[in-house]
């Protein structure tokens, strides 16, 4: 049957055509196409890798930022704390100093009061002494007979006496 008998012409031409086509396409089509696809795939892969790397760097950067922020916060807190402590310390110190000063002033005042008092007492004593002497002198000088009158004079003199 013709159908399954290979024809020499077809065998010849198929061999020639296919071989030439194979060699031509290999040189002018398949190799450039494959090279281009490989190059493109590589560039895409590289780009993806770079993106991934950048992403990682970003994450790293963010983590770093977080750490720095935390540190800054901590520093701020400690500074605030320190400031507060200092403030309290200063207030306490000031109060203390004020108290000591007040104490000192009070003490001084008391001392001077005491001193004045002593002075006054001494003066009073002196005055009373002088007055007594004056009174005694008056009594003695007038030689009052009546006791009543003398008493009156005495009490009057005492009333006149002003204890400044």
């Amino acid at each position, binding site marked *: 049957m013709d159908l399954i008998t290979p024809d020499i012409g077809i065998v010849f031409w*198929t061999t020639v055509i*296919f071989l030439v*086509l194979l060699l031509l396409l290999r040189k002018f*089509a398949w190799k450039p196409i494959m090279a281009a696809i490989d190059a493109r795939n590589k560039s895409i892969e590289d780009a993806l890798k770079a993106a991934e790397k950048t992403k990682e760097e970003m994450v790293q950067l963010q983590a770093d930022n977080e750490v720095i922020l935390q540190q800054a916060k901590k520093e701020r807190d400690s500074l605030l704390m320190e400031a507060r402590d200092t403030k309290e310390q200063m207030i306490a110190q000031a109060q203390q100093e004020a108290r000591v000063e007040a104490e000192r002033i009070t003490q001084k005042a008391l001392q001077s009061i005491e001193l004045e008092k002593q002075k006054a007492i001494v003066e009073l004593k002196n005055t009373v002494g002088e007055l007594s002497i004056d009174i005694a002198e008056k009594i003695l000088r007038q030689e009052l007979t009546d006791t009543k009158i003398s008493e009156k004079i005495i009490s009057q003199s005492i009333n006149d006496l002003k204890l400044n």
Partner: protein
Amino acid sequence: MIHRFQNIFFILFFIFGVSTQIFGSEGAQEKKGVDVNAIIFEHIADNHSWHLWDVRDDDGVKQAVAFPLPIILVSTSPFAFDVFWSSEFHHGDHPVTRGNNTYVLNHGTIYYAQNTQGDLEYDEEGEIISAKPIDISITKNVFTMLLVSGLMFWLFVAVAKAYKKRSGLAPRGVQGFMEPIILFVRDEIAIPNIGHKKYKIFLPYLLTAFFFIWFLNLIGLIPFFPGSANVTGNIATTAVLAMFTLVITNVYANKEYWRHVFAMPGLPAWLLPIMIIVEIISIFTKPFALAVRLFANITAGHIIVLSLVSLIFIFKSLSVAPVSFFFVLFMDVLELFVATLQAFIFTMLSALFIGMAVAEEH
């Protein structure tokens, strides 16, 4: 494996099923004057001219409208090289004389005629026993192959240029259409079967074979010019393609492959002579199966489509036409799938055979 057998049985069933149908109705056709069998086999066979359509001339005689193709004939003793247009045969009616040789075209075959009148030698049973020149004419099939080759070259060089022009960018247009197919051949056929290390050597062959077979299958489905040539349904074409796989497989085969052929490891010595024969036969059966599978699938498809169309002429009734129309439509869609599938299977099995021959020792 089972699927492949089913496939072959299915196709054999179709070939023989359809054949008996045609042969069975032969008697009835002669009465009605349409020899469907002859028409079908004429359509699936190669031809020296490209028949387009028939017209009736003024005398009411049917004349074929065909465009001529170059006839190239080589004679060995004495050496002669004759080239002329197929139109000189007048569709086989006229002998053509060149120098000392007179050629006659008889049912698609060119013979040396005994005399310039174009008489042939017959034996007692009426078979032609005249000698034949070596016929390397540009027949319908060869012309189609040239056409497809030109188309493929133009197409894929354009695709390659698109890659150069749009370097690094997403594929577009015909490049975008072809790239997934090219990558499919690389990633699903070449790499899994041959392996990452060596696939690059064989990829150009696999790609060329795949697209060559696929395009020829598809162009064969077009019922008019420039289609209709049953190239991949020609045993010579498929045999040559399979031969390429055979040669590549055995040229690139490594030591391990030949050790399996000539000294199958782990086999008792007395079995070796038998196994060597079996293995050597298997070297040739693999490509033989490739050739027959492609040939049978495509030829079967063409026969079925032609038979379905012929139903109209067998029944001599236009009312069969809608039935034929839908069956042919169905078959054509199926053939569209088969065209792709067979191109894939040929490439896949070629890759598998090559892969087995170059596989690393493990």
